[in-house]
């Protein structure tokens, strides 16, 4: 599992992470969402031991990642831009990993070769970004990790490989109860395999929740009144957004949909129900509530 407690981190003069708390339990597939610049990559680099937090602590399976910690044997890190030794051939890089990790599984490496067919003799500098990512995933799965941290792992991969990678992640979790954290912009993938999500913006984790709970509890309110919509409802303090087509209003509220509905009932609406919100909408409005501003843009 991954446990981030009160972590703050500045890069130069800029405070990138501000009192971040995050928890991913064992066997969870945790999706980290957030706009660019929210601090996701910095948080991830702190998690895998590249950066050291200025404040706070990070525990992987209960252990802190100190210099040369043996916990690093069980951490797989797949960054958005995979950095290998450009002068090496693929087989040199494989050899390097093979002798670095105590739990390297040669059998698994060979089996996965059926899927990731990248020639051994090719030089790393000849590989495209997608191929480097594939190699990274191939290598990292072969080290038998307990924790996998992935920063935009599927960007740059073609749809076929993408599907295979997601499937491998799912199988990995099934087999070994691996904890997986994926930072991604791809909501489709997120909804496909993640069971928990965390939303980050401006260096803070705004929301951490079970995905099923999010879908069941965060909904839009659709309401219509016989006459004019009451002012108290139109200008409700918890309102994030309100739109209407004719008499039917759709409201996005910050929290406590039930509470707002109870208040609306007092005004005797002719229509009152909750309707679906897509994850995109949820994301946009949750961020919007925290200053991820944009208005209605029209050319």
């Amino acid at each position: 599992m991954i446990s981030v407690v009160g972590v703050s981190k500045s890069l130069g003069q800029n405070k990138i992470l501000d009192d971040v708390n995050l928890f991913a339990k064992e066997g969870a597939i945790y999706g980290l969402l957030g706009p660019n610049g929210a601090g996701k990559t910095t948080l991830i680099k702190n998690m895998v031991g590249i950066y050291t937090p200025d404040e706070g602590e990070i525990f992987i399976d209960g252990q802190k990642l100190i210099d040369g910690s043996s916990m690093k044997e069980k951490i797989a890190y797949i960054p958005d831009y995979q950095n290998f030794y450009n002068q090496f051939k693929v087989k040199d890089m494989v050899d390097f990993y093979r002798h670095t990790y105590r739990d390297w599984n040669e059998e698994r490496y060979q089996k996965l070769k059926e899927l990731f067919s990248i020639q051994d003799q090719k030089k790393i500098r000849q590989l495209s970004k997608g191929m480097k990512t594939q190699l990274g995933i191939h290598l990292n799965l072969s080290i038998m990790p307990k924790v996998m941290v992935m920063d935009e792992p599927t960007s740059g991969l073609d749809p076929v490989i993408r599907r295979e990678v997601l499937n491998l992640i799912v199988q990995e979790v099934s087999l070994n109860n691996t904890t997986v954290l994926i930072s991604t912009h791809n909501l489709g993938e997120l909804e496909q395999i993640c069971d928990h999500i965390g939303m980050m913006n401006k260096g803070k984790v705004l929301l951490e929740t079970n995905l099923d709970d999010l879908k069941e509890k965060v909904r839009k309110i659709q309401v219509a009144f016989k006459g004019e919509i009451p002012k108290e409802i139109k200008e409700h303090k918890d309102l994030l957004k309100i739109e209407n087509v004719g008499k039917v209003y759709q409201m996005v509220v910050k929290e406590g949909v039930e509470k707002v509905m109870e208040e609306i009932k007092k005004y005797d609406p002719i229509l009152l129900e909750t309707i679906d919100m897509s994850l995109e909408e949820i994301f946009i409005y949750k961020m919007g509530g925290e200053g991820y501003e944009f208005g209605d843009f029209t050319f």
Partner: protein
Amino acid sequence: MNLVTSLFNKNLYKKDIRLHWVFGIVIFGLLFLDLPMSHIRYLNEISKLDPMSYQYIEELAWRSYMITDPIQGESPIQFFILLIFPIMIAGFLLGEERRTKTLELLGVMPYKRVQIYMSKVLAGLSIMIVPYLLNFCITLLMRYSIKEVANLYGYGDVVHWIYMSIVPILLFFSFSMLMGMLVGTTIAQVILTVIFMFLPGGLWGLLMMNAEAIRYTLAIHFNDTFIREMGDIVRFFTLPLYILPERTFHDCIDKINLIMGILVIASMIMIFIGYRLFLKNKMERNGEILMFAGLENFFKVGVAICTMLLFGPLLTGILQINSIVLLIIGYVIGLGLGWFIPNYCIQVNRRA
């Protein structure tokens, strides 16, 4: 055994060798041209001589420089090797890993920082020293098998050669690695290492120049023997001078072994300090010119002082005007350039 494995790592050592062995090949080639090949060239030259002529012995004698010079380390090729390779290899070992972010990869892997560092030190030294050892063996072999050179030098001379070559390599390399802990980019590391190696002597030279300039412009005569005396001490700290220790330290030639021994100890101390600094290096500063933010002001002040001392006499020297005002103008220009140019470089590098 445990101590060894906790300090080094075979896999990391292999990796660094694999990345940079080409330097070793080049060094080997250059040394081979200089020593073993000089034997071939010598034999070639003397085969053209007429053993019957009166000047035969003389001709033989004056051509002996072809072999004795390289053995004594007095060869441009060897100066080149000693000056360029330790610095360059240290630059590549550190700067390139930072630039390509593979150092981050190592940071995620279960290696200790000390292992990463010491494996690089060992790899760098191996790449430089092995070519010397090989050529040492080849030269001994040639000395043994070629009778024409038997009276030019002895086996002891070859031993002296290798030992006098390895000490500067060790010294320059450990100094470069130390600099590499303070400076982040390959280019900056190489440039600053060269500058700092020449710095003590260079500064002394600047002080002498300024003393001259002040004397001329103010037409005062002050006793600058203390500056000259400083020169005696300063030369021990100006590292490149150790390429030719017999020349620069001819007055203490009897203590040369002591000096070499001290240099070896100094190198080991520098390697240790480099290791401690490496532990404190922050990954997020990979790619910055200075690895420690606190160095920025110190660095700018240092550069400013040097350029100040340079520009003052430079201005009066070029324009040939003995005016104190001009000297001061030169100082001010120097100060300004020395402050703003490094500042600019740091910013530009950061934005890149």
